């Protein structure tokens, strides 16, 4: 008898990010989520108790849980995106914890790129700030489908409903301009634990769900829309030298279904060759599958022999994208070295690399006012609309329609660093 039969159903895995400025209690909120879901084990707790005491604090500082690096503990700051895990028994969670200090743009874009939900913290005493607007803009830019606005520190405003309602109205007025659709507001005190995991008894006027209730029911799939099938080929399996003669003609195309679904028998086209064929079989570890869904890693076998290599893409014949050698994209510059228009970069889109040059910068977004301003170079944390010319065609979709086939990274070939993140317009 398996022990798992005693555990509740598996509702998959949800990735979310938390954003907020330095003092609005983000680390405390994460600490509270981990603590109240019993994720923190006794020895970790005693370690942070010791550190809290050493620093002369009276209560245990839950925010210490999220500062992992030596320099962070010494300076009491968070340096880089970190990933935290907890599970409720029904669902597993990955939190992308982006630091709130001045490097917020690139860190937040990085953390947001893998998230399906964002929690935006607002300090109830301060209301909607420039920082809140920046974070909301970035969450929207990266196309996060679900937003939770956590109005935190309600304990410091006497759990006042009017304060909460005013912040909600202010936020909605601004969010309307951005076009963000799915927003929920939750009043809470991460410090005291009200409305995070437990309801507490100080927010009786609020009838909505707790933060964890929302997390437990939010859609976990990478997209809820019916997306086009996109299968970038990662690796070609040709075991023709093996001792097993049955494998002599085996040609498996290995990759991850980045979006959409595919079933055995479906008509497909291989890009860039444009040759059409049929899916003969879908397999995982020798087991045949009738179909494969988004985010599933599988091996596809095709009915006809077509020359296919890494970087090619298999799509449904009826929904094939056009190859593109000129693209426009919203780019977040990640590197301390500014973008140099005289240089050539490498663009990595799905499993395909192409040399690229900057054809023009249409505008830069002033992240404080969200206005478009002219620009001729990009510094770290800048966000701009950039046109690129590519040496090799890519098979892309607009990022707003497809996060997987609409995204790319920019690599500096001299250092091999990842220097930019792009979202195709």
């Amino acid at each position, binding site marked *: 008898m398996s022990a798992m039969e005693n555990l509740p159903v598996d509702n998959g895995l949800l990735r979310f990010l938390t954003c907020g400025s330095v003092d609005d209690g983000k680390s405390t909120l994460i600490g509270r989520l981990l603590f109240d879901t019993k994720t923190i084990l006794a*020895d970790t707790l005693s370690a942070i108790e010791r550190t809290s005491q050493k620093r002369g604090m009276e209560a245990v500082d839950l925010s210490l849980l999220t500062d992992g690096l030596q320099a962070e503990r010494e300076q009491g700051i968070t340096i880089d995106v970190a990933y935290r895990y907890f599970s409720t028994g029904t669902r597993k969670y990955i939190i992308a914890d982006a630091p709130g200090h001045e490097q917020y743009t690139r860190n937040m874009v990085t953390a947001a790129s893998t998230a399906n939900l964002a929690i935006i913290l607002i300090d109830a005493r301060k209301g909607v700030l420039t920082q809140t607007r920046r974070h909301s803009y970035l969450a929207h830019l990266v196309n996060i489908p679900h937003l939770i606005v956590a109005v935190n520190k309600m304990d410091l405003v006497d759990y006042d409903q009017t304060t909460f309602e005013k912040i909600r109205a202010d936020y909605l007025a601004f969010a309307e301009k951005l076009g963000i659709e799915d927003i929920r507001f939750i009043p809470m005190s991460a410090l005291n634990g009200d409305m995070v995991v437990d309801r507490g008894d100080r927010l009786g006027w609020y009838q909505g769900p707790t933060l964890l209730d929302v997390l437990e029911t939010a*859609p976990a799939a990478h997209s809820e829309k019916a997306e086009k099938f996109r299968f970038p080929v990662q690796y070609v399996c040709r075991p023709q030298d*093996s001792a097993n003669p049955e494998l002599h003609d085996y040609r498996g195309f290995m990759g991850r279904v980045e979006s959409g679904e595919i079933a055995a028998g479906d008509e497909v086209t291989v890009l860039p060759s444009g040759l059409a064929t049929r899916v003969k079989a879908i397999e995982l570890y020798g087991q045949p599958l009738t179909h494969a869904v988004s985010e599933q890693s599988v091996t596809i076998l095709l009915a006809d022999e077509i020359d296919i290599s890494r970087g090619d893409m298999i799509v449904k014949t009826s929904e094939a994208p056009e190859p593109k050698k000129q693209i426009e994209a919203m780019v977040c510059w990640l590197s301390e070295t500014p973008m140099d228009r005289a240089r050539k970069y490498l663009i990595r889109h799905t499993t395909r690399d192409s040399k690229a040059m900057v054809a023009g910068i249409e505008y830069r977004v002033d992240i404080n006012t969200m206005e478009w301003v002219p620009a001729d170079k990009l510094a770290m944390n800048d966000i701009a609309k950039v046109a690129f010319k590519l040496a090799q065609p890519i098979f892309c979709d607009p990022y707003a329609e497809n996060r997987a086939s609409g995204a790319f990274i920019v690599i500096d070939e001299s250092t091999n660093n990842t220097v930019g993140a792009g979202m195709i317009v």
Partner: protein
Amino acid sequence: MTQTRTLSKTTLSHLDWLEAEAIHIMREVAGQCANPVLLFSGGKDSICMLRIAEKAFRPGKFPFPLMHIDTGHNYQEVVQFRDKRAAELGERLIVRSVEDSMKRGTVVLKHPGESRNKHQSVTLLEAIEEFGFDACIGGARRDEEKARAKERIMSFRDEFGQWDPKNQRPELWNLYNARSHKGENIRAFPISNWTEMDVWQYIEREQLELPSIYFAHKRPVVLRQGAIVPVNVPLMSGELTNLPKAGEEIVELQVRFRTVGDISCTAPVESDADTVAKIVLETATTTITERGATRLDDQTSEASMEQRKKEGYF
């Protein structure tokens, strides 16, 4: 967000999702790197990695050899398991040993009893150079240790094998950048997003075989600074190691290992769990972390793992 939205029927279970991600990462290493290697110690995480490699590349051969950096102080059950598993898979296993580095003079112990665990880094870097590996795939998880929580899935190391936590490549979407120049290498961690619980649930689901010391067994131990320290452990050579110190009382306890490493720095926990199902339940109810009372080398300072990683440790 409407209240009534139901979960899509096509949502993968959390284990399926983690597995699919790990397969994707392993295939990216194979697709991007010219000469990768998969580190295999015979421990539970690397046992999961082998199953993921099978799911990623079968019916083909693995596009990389397996490699173990042997401190010479490993439990013989684990070493035997390592060799058996590699043979069953029909894949090439490279073993490089810290003792050879000691003979070469590149590893010098402060005293004969010093833990060889941290010296594995020297032997690993020597092996990377010897074979010209440009990527090492390993089974480290972010939940194991706080320095690992900050590490990228594709983690860049310079010519000296050093990790610079303040200068890591940003990692966006699932677009991994495993590029490196000659002499540098990438450490790739396909199961970064797994927790100890996920590993045990995966072992249960996949019915993976494990070295016997993961299950409850009787063993002579001493209690030293709050940890259970195994004593008189036979090595592959038959020689006994971890001899008790003067004045220590040897007791026999029913224990199992949550993490398996060098004998001198790995401590078991008391347990009756003799099946994977029982271990899953015990993991769900434990109050101490995997490395809390079980890794003596992590406890020397708050930043000991981070320090070792900066110096090239896995």
